[in-house]
């Protein structure tokens, strides 16, 4: 059953990218959930017999940091924070942006114009700057970081949904439904929403990739967690001070994790956009 699904996905256009991207995301999610079983050490303890700033070895595959914490364990535990922030912010953005886009695009009028103007302005602005401003007022925490990211991605979901609704609205089958007197909420729920769904999936992938990088940026500036909670961006920030000592592993491994997870979301988004012939932005 699952195999059949994967086979079907692979055959569709962009199928390889979709499956590769989804696999990466599933892999990191599994790692995050099973962190206590996968990580050989606690992320914020210097285990006995483990030195500081040790290069990668069999015992510490990603080396150790300046406090003797195992970098591999920190990267494994760090997946939890990133995924929590990104999944949380994606879900909130979707729940806010999609209904607004549906209603705004379907009914039009002055509220649509006002909303569009606000969302377009936010969309045109460098997202990370806005997120930094918001996160700095709210203070570092997973929830606050998710809220900060929401300010960036609500406009993305809103704009893509609205654009798709405008396209659908002019299609004959919607016009026919309206002519038959079908209530608007039925048209929206039964006929427009299912047709908007592929677009939303694509945005989930593409905006997700962006969200991973923005989360890492916020974390890099200390706006998501406080040391010693393991988080990739923050670990990278502290690790950079030891590059001069030649401790490249403190930067390399957390960064490689960011790249891989972001790539997972980007591939999923790309693959799905090819599959559903949706243009990303």
């Amino acid at each position, binding site marked *: 059953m699952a195999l059949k699904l994967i086979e079907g996905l692979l055959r569709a256009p962009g199928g390889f990218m979709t499956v590769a991207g989804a696999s990466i995301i599933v892999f990191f999610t599994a790692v995050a959930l099973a962190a206590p079983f996968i990580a050989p050490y606690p992320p914020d303890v210097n285990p006995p017999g483990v030195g500081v700033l040790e290069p990668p070895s069999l015992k510490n595959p990603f080396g150790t940091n300046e406090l003797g914490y195992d970098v591999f364990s920190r990267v494994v535990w760090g997946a939890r924070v990133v995924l929590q922030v990104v999944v949380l912010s994606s879900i909130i953005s979707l729940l806010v942006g999609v209904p607004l886009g549906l209603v705004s695009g379907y009914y039009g009028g002055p509220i649509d114009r006002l909303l569009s*103007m606000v969302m*377009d302005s936010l969309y*045109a*602005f*460098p997202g*990370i700057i806005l997120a930094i401003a918001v996160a700095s*007022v709210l203070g570092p925490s997973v929830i606050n970081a998710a809220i900060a990211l929401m300010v960036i991605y609500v406009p993305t979901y809103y704009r893509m949904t609205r654009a798709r609704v405008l396209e659908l609205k002019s299609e004959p089958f919607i016009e026919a439904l309206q002519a038959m007197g079908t209530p608007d909420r039925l048209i929206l729920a039964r006929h427009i929403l299912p047709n908007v769904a592929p677009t939303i999936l694509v945005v989930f992938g593409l905006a997700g990739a962006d969200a991973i990088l923005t989360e890492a940026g916020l974390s890099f500036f200390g706006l998501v967690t406080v040391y010693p909670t393991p988080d990739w961006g923050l670990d*990278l920030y502290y690790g950079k001070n030891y590059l001069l000592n030649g401790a490249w592993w403190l930067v390399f491994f957390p960064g490689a994790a960011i790249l891989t997870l972001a790539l997972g979301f980007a591939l999923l988004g790309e693959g799905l956009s090819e599959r559903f012939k949706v243009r990303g932005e």
Partner: protein
Amino acid sequence: MSLLRYVAVRSALIIPTVLVLYTVVFIVMRVLPGDPVRAALGVHYIPPEELEEIRSRLGLDEPLYIQYFEYLAGILRGDLGESLVFEGRSVWSDIIDRFPATLELALAGSLVSIAIGFITGGLAALKGGIVDRLMRVYGIIAYTLFIPWLGLMLQYIFSIRLGLLPSGGRIDPRVGLEEVTGFYLVDSIITGNPHAFVSTLEHLILPSLTLGIVLSGAYTRIVRVHLSEALRSEFSIAYRARGLRESAVFIHALRNSLVPIVTLMGLQFALLLGGAILTETTFSWPGLGSFLVERVMYRDYTAVQGAVVFFAVIVSVVSMVVDVIYAIIDPRIRY
């Protein structure tokens, strides 16, 4: 519509964009719970009279709607208020001090990204096949690189390991440079200072490469798609059928693919500024991005608010300029 009128109409559209962003920032900074003055001054005990005094000096004791409009009037005068942390420092002049560094980095990074984008995308469009697929993968990976990671890895290889390039800063502090415009490359030329020019260039390479590579992914993709489309388009076939040289056909196809590419440049500018913040922090680049991050750490909210509003103005102006360029390239837009 004449081009001039188009410019005027398009310029007027800057106002709502800036207004919306200012309002959002104002709400975030002032309306959300929390006392910025207390937060900025830290945990020590401060007598209530002193707090009151600071509040009234900064106008924070007035009703919110008055604060909103007073600050707005200030923006029009080029006054972004006073620093909450550094007494008596004007936010506007701090920003103006730092801005040239950011613009220099952004322009260099943009140049690098466009160059890489045209080379990779052009190769993909011209060669097709395996090259095309490789470039497509490059486009996706470049986009998903985390700027500090790429920057630090380049730093580790080229400055720490190989010792070829400096690891941070804008210029070697031992090289004296008289500042005129704040753009070091320009200043070193104006003042006839070749040492400063070389030193600036050396310092610029890694940051602009970092920023440029990450931003190039989008260009690779768009050049690849639109150039190959234009090269295969009917009008290119018509040009060939009239016996034009392939080089001439290429130039006309390029011009046609430029329309979406210029649009992208406008969208990219926002990403460029966002990327500049991370790049500046990675390379200790004394620009507006590191200014913003510094002041976030100090909880200097007036400075943060000023910087965000300033970025909003810059982004809107650039998007206006891009639209005007767009109208110049494509005759279908205006008439």
